[in-house]
C-alpha cells in the first residue's frame, strides 16, 4: 500500500523494492500492511469454509458434503478466523499505529517483527494444506475434524493423521503471536516520545499493551497443551489418556486456561479502537479515560479465573461452579463501565456519522447484545440447557463478528486515509456497512432461537422444525459473505491510490500524534521524537 516512501526517503536509499521489500522488510508500516492483507485473506478463506457450512445447513438432510467433511469445515473455519483473521488483524493495526501513536520511529525489535509475520503464512499453508488434501487429495485424508477447541480424546486417540500438521501449525502461530506481543510491550515501555506518560497514551495503545501481556501469559500454555497432545499421540505419555492414568478433562482445563484470556485478546484491542473513534466523531474527549484503563486491566485479570465456565457440564463441585459463575458475572461490571463511557462520550456530543463512526456505533450495540447473551451463558443452571447449542454459536459470533471484526472495519475506514493517502470510497463503504449490518443480524440473530429450542452445534444436519430459521440464517450468511467484496473493493481502490486525496488529519475531531504526520504516512516517521505536552 505505502509506496509513497520516495519523497520522504532522501537519506534512506537502501530501501529495496518489489518482492524483496516485503520479504525483508523491517519497517513497521510495511509489516503492518502485510499483517492486514494476510488477515483479510484469512477472513475470506475462513468465510469460504463458513459458506460450505451454511450451504449444507440451508436445508435439512444431507445434500452437499458428508458429515465428516462438515466437521473439518467447522474446525478449520474456527481456527482460520481466530488465529488467522482476528489475531493477526489486530497485530497489523498495532504495527501500523502504535509507533505513530506514541511518537516512536519504529517497533523496538524490527527484525523479530519481520520474523513474527513471515512464519504465519507458513503456519497457515500447513493447516490449509490438510483441507486441500481432504478435498482433492487421493483417498481424501481427513483434515482436523475435532472442532477448533480440539478436545482430547477426539484430537489424541481419535485424531486423524493431519492432527500433527495442526499441532505444528499451532506451534508456529503461537510463536508468531508471542513475538508480536513482546515487540508491542518493548515498544510501549521503551520507545514512547518524551512527555508521553503511560496515562497519556491513546487507549488503543493501552488495550494493546494489556493484550500483549495476556498473549505472553497464555500462548505458551496453548503451546504446552498441543505439546502434551503430541507426546500423547506419539511418545507414549498419558496426559489426557485415561487408560494410562491421565484425564481427558484435564485437557479442557489447560485449553480453557488459554482459551478464556484468548477471548479477551480478541476483544480488548477492539475496545481501544472504538475508544479512539467515538471521541473523534462525537467531538468530545473520551469520557472516563482512567476508568477505561482500569476496566481493561480488570477484565484482563479476571480472564484468568473464569475458564471453567466453558465446561460447567463436565461436572464440578458446587463450590467450583459457583465460583466460576460469580467471577464470570463480575466481568460484566468493567465491561459495563466501558459501554457506559462510550455512550457518555456520545452524549451531547456534536456527532457526525462518517463510516468509521457508523461501524463503531454498530460495534457498541451489537457487542452489548453478545455480552448479554454471555451473561446468560454464565449462569450455571441455564448453561446446562444452552451448552453446545446454537445459542452459544450466536453469542460468540455476536462478540467476534459484530464485535471484533466490526471494530476492525471501523479501524480500517478510520486509518485508511493515513495509510494510503486517499479517502476510502464512500459509496462502496456505505454499501459495505449497511449490507453487512443487516445481513450479520439475519445471520446470527435467529441462531439464538434455534439454540434455545435445542439445536446442537457442530452437526451437519438438524431436526425438521429448525428448517425455516436455518434457511434464513444461510441466506444471511451468503449475503454477509458477499458484502465483504465491497470492502475488498474499498481496500484495492485505496491501495491503488484511487480516490479523493486525504489531508494529514482527514477527520476534524481527531486527536493524536498519528494525525501530525502527512497522509499517506511517510516511510519513516518521528525519527526525531515529538514532544508531548
Amino acid at each position, binding site marked *: 500500500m505505502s509506496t509513497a516512501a520516495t519523497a520522504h526517503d532522501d537519506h534512506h536509499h537502501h530501501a529495496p523494492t518489489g518482492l524483496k521489500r516485503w520479504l525483508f522488510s523491517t519497517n513497521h508500516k510495511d509489516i503492518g500492511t502485510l499483517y492486514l492483507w494476510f488477515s483479510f485473506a484469512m477472513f475470506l478463506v475462513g468465510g469460504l469454509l463458513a459458506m460450505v457450512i451454511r450451504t449444507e445447513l440451508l436445508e435439512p438432510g444431507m445434500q452437499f458434503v458428508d458429515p465428516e467433511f462438515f466437521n473439518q469445515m467447522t474446525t478449520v473455519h474456527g481456527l482460520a478466523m481466530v488465529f488467522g483473521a482476528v489475531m493477526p488483524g489486530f497485530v497489523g493495526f498495532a504495527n501500523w499505529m502504535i509507533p505513530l501513536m506514541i511518537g516512536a520511529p519504529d517497533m*523496538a525489535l524490527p527484525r523479530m517483527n519481520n520474523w513474527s509475520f513471515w512464519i504465519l503464512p507458513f503456519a497457515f499453508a500447513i493447516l490449509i494444506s490438510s483441507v486441500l488434501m481432504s478435498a482433492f487429495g487421493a483417498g481424501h485424508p481427513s483434515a482436523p475434524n475435532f472442532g477448533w477447541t480440539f478436545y482430547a480424546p477426539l484430537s489424541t*486417540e481419535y485424531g486423524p493423521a493431519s492432527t500433527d500438521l495442526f499441532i505444528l501449525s499451532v506451534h508456529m502461530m503461537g510463536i508468531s503471536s*508471542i513475538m508480536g506481543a513482546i515487540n508491542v*510491550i518493548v515498544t510501549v515501555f521503551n520507545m514512547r516520545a518524551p512527555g508521553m506518560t503511560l496515562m497519556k497514551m491513546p487507549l488503543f495503545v493501552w488495550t494493546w499493551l494489556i493484550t500483549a501481556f495476556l498473549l*505472553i*501469559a497464555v500462548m505458551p500454555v496453548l503451546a504446552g*497443551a498441543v505439546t502434551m497432545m503430541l507426546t500423547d499421540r506419539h511418545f507414549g505419555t498419558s*496426559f489426557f489418556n485415561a*487408560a494410562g492414568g491421565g484425564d481427558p478433562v484435564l485437557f479442557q482445563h489447560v485449553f480453557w486456561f488459554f482459551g478464556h484470556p484468548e477471548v479477551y485478546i480478541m476483544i480488548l484491542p477492539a475496545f481501544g479502537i472504538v475508544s479512539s473513534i467515538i471521541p473523534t466523531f462525537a467531538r468530545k474527549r473520551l469520557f472516563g479515560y482512567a476508568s477505561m484503563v482500569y476496566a481493561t486491566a480488570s477484565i484482563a485479570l479476571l480472564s484468568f479465573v473464569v475458564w471453567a465456565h466453558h465446561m460447567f457440564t463436565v*461436572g464440578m463441585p458446587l463450590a467450583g461452579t459457583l465460583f466460576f459463575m460469580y467471577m464470570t458475572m463480575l466481568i460484566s461490571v468493567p465491561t459495563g463501565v466501558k459501554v457506559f463511557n462510550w455512550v457518555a462520550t456520545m452524549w451531547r456530543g456534536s456527532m457526525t456519522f462518517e463510516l468509521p463512526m457508523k461501524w463503531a456505533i454498530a460495534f457498541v450495540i451489537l457487542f452489548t447484545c453478545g455480552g448479554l447473551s454471555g451473561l446468560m451463558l454464565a449462569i450455571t443452571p441455564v448453561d446446562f440447557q444452552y451448552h453446545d447449542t446454537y445459542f452459544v454459536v450466536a453469542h460468540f459470533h455476536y462478540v467476534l463478528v459484530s464485535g471484533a471484526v466490526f471494530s476492525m472495519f471501523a479501524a480500517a475506514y478510520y486509518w485508511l486515509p493515513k495509510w494510503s493517502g486517499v479517502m476510502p470510497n464512500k459509496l462502496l463503504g456505505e454499501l459495505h456497512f449497511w449490507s453487512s449490518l443487516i445481513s450479520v443480524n439475519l445471520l446470527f440473530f435467529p441462531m439464538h432461537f434455534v439454540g434455545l429450542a435445542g439445536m446442537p452445534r457442530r452437526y451437519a444436519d438438524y431436526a425438521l422444525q429448525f428448517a425455516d430459521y436455518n434457511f434464513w440464517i444461510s441466506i444471511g450468511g451468503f449475503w454477509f459473505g458477499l458484502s465483504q467484496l465491497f470492502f475488498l473493493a474499498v481496500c484495492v481502490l485505496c491501495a491503488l491510490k484511487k480516490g479523493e486525496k486525504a489531508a494529514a488529519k482527514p477527520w476534524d475531531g481527531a486527536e493524536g500524534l498519528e494525525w501530525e504526520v502527512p497522509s499517506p504516512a511517510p516511510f519513516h516517521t518521528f525519527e526525531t521524537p515529538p514532544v508531548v505536552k
Partner: protein
Amino acid sequence: MSDDSLEHRNKRTLRKLLIWALAMFGFAFAMVPFYDVICDITGLNGKTSSTASSEGPSRTVEDRTVTVEFITQRGQGVNGDFMSATRRVKVHPGEITLVNFYASNPKTSDIVTQSIPSVTPGEAARYLHKTQCFCFDQQTLGAGERKEMPMIFYLDPELPRHINTLTLSYTIFDVTDRVAAANDAVINNNAVAQ
C-alpha cells in the same frame, strides 16, 4: 537517550519477557500435578485411590443404607465381555463387601488390560476405600480366557449424609501395545547400559 542505551534497554525487556513466556510454557505442564492434587482434595474427576487402603473401617453404621451401583464400559480396542456380577448392592457404611467383575478375551493372543475407576458424585470418591481391586494392577488376559476379578471395598463411616447412592464406573482399556512399547524401552536401556 543515546541509541546504545535504548538498544540495551530493549534487549533487557526482551529477555525478561522471553523468560516469562518460557515460564508460562512450564506452567502448562505444572497444571498436570496441580490438577491431580485438586482432584484428590475435591474429588473433581471421581477418581478413587489407586492403592489398597491399609486399615479397615473404624465402625459400621448399621442405621444407614447406601446404594452402590456398578457400571462397566469397554474402552477403545477391547471387544471381550467386561461386567460386574451384580448391578447394585445396598451396604452400610463401614461394611466390607466383595463384588466380582468378569473380563474375557476372545482374541487369539494375550492382552494386557488396565481398568480405570470413576465415582459419581465426585465428592464421594474419597469416601470409597478399596482393600483389593483388579484396577490397582494391569491384568493379563490369556487368549480366550475369561477371568474373575474381585474387588473388595467399604464406604467410609463419615460419608456425607446427603449421599444415598453412588455409582462406581470402570472402563477397561487394552494397554498391550503401551506395555510392549515400555518393555522395549527398558530392554533397549538395559542393552545400552551393558
